[in-house]
């Protein structure tokens, strides 16, 4: 299976997750700002700080994840694959505007690259792919409302779509055995992203909202 086919199948997975998020309404629905793309200074600084924090936090995990994936292939790092995108979900929870997740993704991975991610500047590729996938899920929901379920699916989509960049970078399309490992790992990637990114990001957002310390938490 070639890389374009893997990309196409992953796009279909992301769109499918978006459609599920749109039509299956589970949990309490919270409102977002719809297609409001006007980021205020406060939004930009919040996203920058969240990206810096996640960049620092994720750098150690990134080294472990890279080593596992490089040495053992797609299955070895799958459980950790979803541990990087909690910041995207947290940023969306606080900012609630389209593009917040992809901006945090790019900034977070840029910080990781600067702090010594063993993939260098190519780390930004994960920020872009993962951020876009999470955005697509919430774009299909028109950015109008979200719940734990839709944010979980956004995390899952981000986690799975990020593996396209890994497949390109680490050469996971070279032999049929590795390709079959790649698809075997996808359910693990999805669950990992749902829990470690979607639910963790939302939980952090709600904890921050409860503190009442930050003006950014709005009235949610």
């Amino acid at each position, binding site marked *: 299976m070639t890389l374009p086919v893997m990309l196409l199948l992953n796009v279909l997975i992301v769109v499918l997750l978006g459609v599920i998020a749109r039509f299956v309404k589970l949990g309490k629905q919270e409102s977002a700002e719809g297609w409001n793309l006007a980021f205020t200074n406060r939004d930009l600084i919040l996203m920058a700080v969240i990206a810096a*924090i996640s960049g620092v936090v994720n750098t150690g995990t990134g080294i472990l994840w890279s080593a596992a994936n*490089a040495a053992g292939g797609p299955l070895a790092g799958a459980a950790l694959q979803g541990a990087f995108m909690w910041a995207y979900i947290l940023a969306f929870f606080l900012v609630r505007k389209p593009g917040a997740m992809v901006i945090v993704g790019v900034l977070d991975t840029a910080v990781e690259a600067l*702090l*010594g991610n063993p*993939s*260098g500047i190519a780390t930004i590729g994960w920020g872009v792919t993962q951020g876009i996938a999470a955005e697509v899920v919430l774009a299909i929901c028109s950015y109008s409302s979200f719940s734990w379920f839709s944010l979980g699916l956004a995390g899952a989509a981000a986690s799975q779509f990020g593996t396209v960049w890994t497949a390109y970078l680490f050469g996971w399309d070279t032999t049929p055995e590795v390709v079959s490992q790649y698809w075997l790992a996808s359910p693990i990637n999805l669950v990992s992203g749902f829990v470690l990114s979607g639910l963790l990001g939302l939980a952090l957002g709600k*904890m921050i909202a409860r503190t009442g310390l930050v003006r950014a938490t709005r009235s949610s």
Partner: protein
Amino acid sequence: MSEQLLAYVEKESPFHRADALSKLLWVILVVLATFQFQTTLSRAMMFLALLFTALVVARVPWRSFWRVSPLIFGVAVLLGAFHYAVTPRFTPLFSMGSYVIFREPLEAGGAYFFRLAIMVLASFLLIWTTDTYQLMVGLAYLGLPYRYAFAIFMALRYIPLIQREVEAVQAAHAIRGRAVQSPLKHRFRLWQRYLFTVIVNGLRKAENTAIAIESRGFGAYPQRTYWKEFRWTRSGILLVLIFVFFSLALIVWERFLF
């Protein structure tokens, strides 16, 4: 954690004098060229060229290079070993006792090793020799709205603050008797607490920063001025041109002459 492995080191070298955008362009060029190479030998030559650029042209201290070498080579070695193990074997090259080395896995392992090592070394070289402020001004020069460029700069500015914050929170927890040498579950809970505290403190700082910059009218005008304007430099353009010719020469050599 407080001492950053990778940071800009101010030095006097032709590489340091090159402008930030040329160096960014150079990294992209090196990465793209590496993906175009078809033989391990071409990638090895590119890697040697980068090593020469780092140690001789950019005068990166051996000590800095040595300290980050596990990051440059660690994952690359593992990736090379993985591809060596999974690549089908057809052509025997030589044997060591009863163990036969085949051409295909050696080629694949070497290819992935050098591909990753080149990418990481080029990125690190950019970090060692480029002031992030200059990079931000350069990105604004390219047309990125300055508020977004400022967000990038802000994220980078916050890194040392957050690292110190993590240390302070860890110390505070340790004083209260919550040592790190504890069972995994407890360590996970500690981790959650660190993360939450660091995020809340970070967001509070972000709020204050937002109020401060807005009260100074940041973002009121579509353009802004910089104390140091971006300018393309001769050394930067030369660096890009040298590597364009070097990459093209390697591609021509491996496809038509090798």
